């Protein structure tokens, strides 16, 4: 190795340039232990067309589920968006159901390892980049969390948080 080459290697090391790691250990905290789906619905007693042309109708089962709860009962429902993200063993994660908009963000983190009956997670609801709600929920196989959220265009947003695979909640 010439003197110039040696100096180049030394400079790279001092500058902190990344060096390839052949056998970097896997981080067990990044193990995916589940998936969480966050869905945003538009609920209104007025004209559902206010949600926009791209908003889709809500599945009958989910619509019935919403109508069965008095405080979530509206004449019209529309699906605005959803996002499914992995639930890590140790790290928090975020769902952006209205992506790329950041108007509605949900941060979640596992509290313990899921059981066949339930998954216990810490959850935060962010609206307009402000933390509005922090809670812990037990999500069952078909037992979502429904949050009646802010007003928008004469209606309300309903944020549903469920374990992934519960396609019947859409």
């Amino acid at each position, binding site marked *: 190795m010439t003197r110039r080459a040696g100096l180049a290697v030394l400079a790279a090391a001092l500058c902190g340039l990344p060096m390839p790691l052949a056998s970097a250990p896997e981080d067990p905290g*990044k193990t995916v232990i589940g998936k969480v789906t966050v869905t945003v619905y538009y609920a209104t007693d007025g004209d559902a067309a206010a*949600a*926009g*042309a*791209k*908003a889709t109708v809500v599945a009958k089962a989910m619509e019935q*589920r919403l109508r*069965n*709860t008095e*405080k*979530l009962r509206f004449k019209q429902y529309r699906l*605005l*968006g959803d996002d499914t*993200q992995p639930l*890590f063993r140790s*790290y*928090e*994660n*975020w769902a*952006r159901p*209205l*992506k*790329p*908009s*950041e*108007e509605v*963000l949900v*941060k979640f983190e596992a509290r313990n390892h899921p059981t*066949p*009956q*339930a998954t216990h997670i810490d959850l935060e609801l*962010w*609206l*307009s*980049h*402000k*933390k*509005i*709600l*922090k*809670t*812990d*929920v*037990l*999500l*069952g*196989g*078909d*037992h*979502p*969390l*429904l*949050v*009646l*959220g*802010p*007003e*928008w*265009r004469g209606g309300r*947003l309903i944020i549903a948080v469920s374990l992934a695979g519960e396609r019947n909640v859409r």
Partner: protein
Amino acid sequence: MPDETHLARWLDDDLDGTELSAFEASFHPDAALLARRQARREWRSTLAAAIPAAVELPYPEFFNHRLAKTIREIELNPPQTHKPTSPPAPAFWRVWWMPVTALAGMTLAFWAGTQTAGVTRVVPRTNPALAPVALHRPTVYIPEHGVDAEYFTSPDADAAVIVLEGVEPIPDNLDFSESVGQITTDNLTAATENPEPTEVTQ
């Protein structure tokens, strides 16, 4: 006077052979005791007719032992009545009807238990496996002033529900459908806290 055990067994026709001969040689029952024995026989006949012959009581030795013990206890210590105003019952009836009633009650209860042993229990509407989910009471923290949250579970929707009131409305000019496809990761303060940034896919 014979001992209570032999007397009770004699009343139940439980003595036989030499035991019966020895008992009857040393004891001459009066008319009241003979009437008691006859009443018991008639009651046993009534019960035998009421209970199907095909039904065999499980654990018969245990059943008979407990039955005889109960009868003896009642005969030795008859319960005192607390109604002094009512006329006293004839001694004959007061002596025999209580053990007979006890016999009938125990027999019918025992028989009813054998009939319901195979009955399927009613399954609660709520899935027992999900009971912890339905019973969970979360901690709800609202950092924003002026925002209220109400938590409840909705059995009809099979969901946990949080109703937020006082949240600042989302501007109507925000059109989520128009933003589709326009990925903007700048100013995403939330993502900077994420140790595993999520790849945004459409």
